[in-house]
């Protein structure tokens, strides 16, 4: 039952899932780190990215344009939500923020259900990445291999923005002490809007590139939201590298346990989170004092 080809294949699946979780979680973690708002609509952003990609694909027939269009759409949706709704909740208790983002998530899911119905939609993989590739020792769907590369490139782009640009400098400082960034002359209100937009874009991009390997449904973001939270807790709130590490760990845990018994994969994920919380409450790469 346990053979090498199977194990390697599952490790690969874990890598693909993990990279995707890392990308979604990095969006969630920079939003929470900078704005202090736990965005429970983040799963809905992921789902919306898939649908936006599907719509653009219907118009253009181009997968690349579908992904770009979905990303652009989610930046705008994120920025508008911040400007119109989230902004009014910074000074309010955490429960209010959780309730309002939870509510926004429901509204987005139901709007999508109303517009597209509950039946699942599919977005085909691009022609250059369809079919199956032989890796010598095993056969693997080509698009899943491409997906790992695409998501890795997106994470690299996010890294570049965060660590090599002035905007990234402001965001990293804002994660630590937004009030001091304001005192140093930067309009943090604008920065918050941009961060929420970028965070939503990370989820939307992930939703679009993941669409060819799943069926799109309005509830498609619910499960991923919970897994993403676990990733952020494991990696450390506000830490980009923590989100990447946590994502990869979570992906492999989900994948390897489902090889033994899929019923235990969620259990194993939460068990791992519990262990981290017991031994390192700030998360693997989180700064102490931000628990």
């Amino acid at each position, binding site marked *: 039952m346990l053979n090498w080809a199977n194990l390697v294949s599952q490790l690969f699946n874990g890598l693909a899932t993990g990279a995707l979780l890392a990308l979604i979680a990095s969006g969630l973690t920079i939003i929470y780190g900078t704005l202090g708002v736990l965005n429970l609509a983040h799963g809905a952003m992921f789902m919306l990215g898939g649908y936006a990609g599907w719509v653009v694909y219907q118009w253009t027939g181009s997968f690349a344009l579908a992904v770009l269009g979905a990303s652009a759409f989610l930046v705008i949706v994120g920025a508008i939500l911040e400007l119109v709704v989230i902004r009014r909740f910074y000074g309010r208790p955490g429960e209010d923020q959780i309730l309002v983002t939870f509510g926004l998530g429901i509204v987005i899911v139901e709007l999508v259900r109303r517009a597209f119905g509950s039946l699942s939609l599919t977005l085909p993989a691009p022609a250059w990445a369809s079919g199956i590739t032989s890796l010598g020792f095993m056969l693997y769907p080509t698009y899943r291999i491409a997906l790992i590369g695409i998501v890795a490139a997106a994470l690299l782009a996010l890294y570049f923005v965060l660590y090599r640009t002035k905007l990234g400098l402001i965001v990293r400082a804002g994660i630590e002490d937004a009030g001091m960034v304001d*005192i140093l*002359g930067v309009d943090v209100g604008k920065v918050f809007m941009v961060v929420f937009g970028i965070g939503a874009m990370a989820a939307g991009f992930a939703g679009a590139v993941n669409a060819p390997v799943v069926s799109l449904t309005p509830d498609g973001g619910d499960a991923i939201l919970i897994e993403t939270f676990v990733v952020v807790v494991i990696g450390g709130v506000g830490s980009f590298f923590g989100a990447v590490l946590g994502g990869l760990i979570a992906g492999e845990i989900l994948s390897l346990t489902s090889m033994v018994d899929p019923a235990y994969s969620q259990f194993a994920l939460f068990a791992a989170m519990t262990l981290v919380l017991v031994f390192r409450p700030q998360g693997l790469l989180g700064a102490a004092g931000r628990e």
Partner: protein
Amino acid sequence: MAKPGETLLAVEGLNSYYGDSHILFDVAMTVARGEVVALLGRNGAGKSTTMKSLMGAVRPRSGSVKLEGEDLAGRKPHRIAAAGIQLVPEERRVFGSLNVEENIVLAGVSAPARWPLDRVYAMFPRLKERRLSRGTDLSGGEQQMLAIARALARDPKIVLLDEPFEGLAPIIVHELVRTVHELAAAGQTIVVVEQNLAAALGLASRAYVLNNGHVVYEGTTAELRATPDVLHRYLGV
């Protein structure tokens, strides 16, 4: 156009609250261009609240904060910073996850005018040595140098130093006092809050004494030294 001696900052009728508690009562003060003014008083007298109110980090409920005649009261900190007031907060608030140079660069990002890095490092050679160290790895004295360097990098019209020598070893205090003297000699306008009375009186030419949120004394530091009952009553010396 900018002559030393003319009024740079004029504060009038400033009232600030924390929630329902009234902290500042009609605080008034003026600072001339190129002047170093000390804000003195016991713990809880309202010194830090005054500094935060000038920066906009605490929003005053009434009163005016005029910089070169333009009223800044009620504006957000980033707009007050853009106008040329720069607070070096008591807690220093150095970004621990950023290195020394990133801290300084960040401060200059939105500044209308800024000091080149070389000029900052010439004033704080220690920071140049540690330019790639993260904020969390700095000693208390180095963090204070960085906090001041960050403010200067924005080439502000007026620097507000809140307890710059607090909790530092005497040798570091000595070094920082010299730096602040150099700044003052170069014409930098400074308001300094300091518990260390000797250091504060040594730096400033004029002082305001706060008690329970009221200005109870203002005068030159020479006059204040010659007024032992004020020193005794409000500063416990």
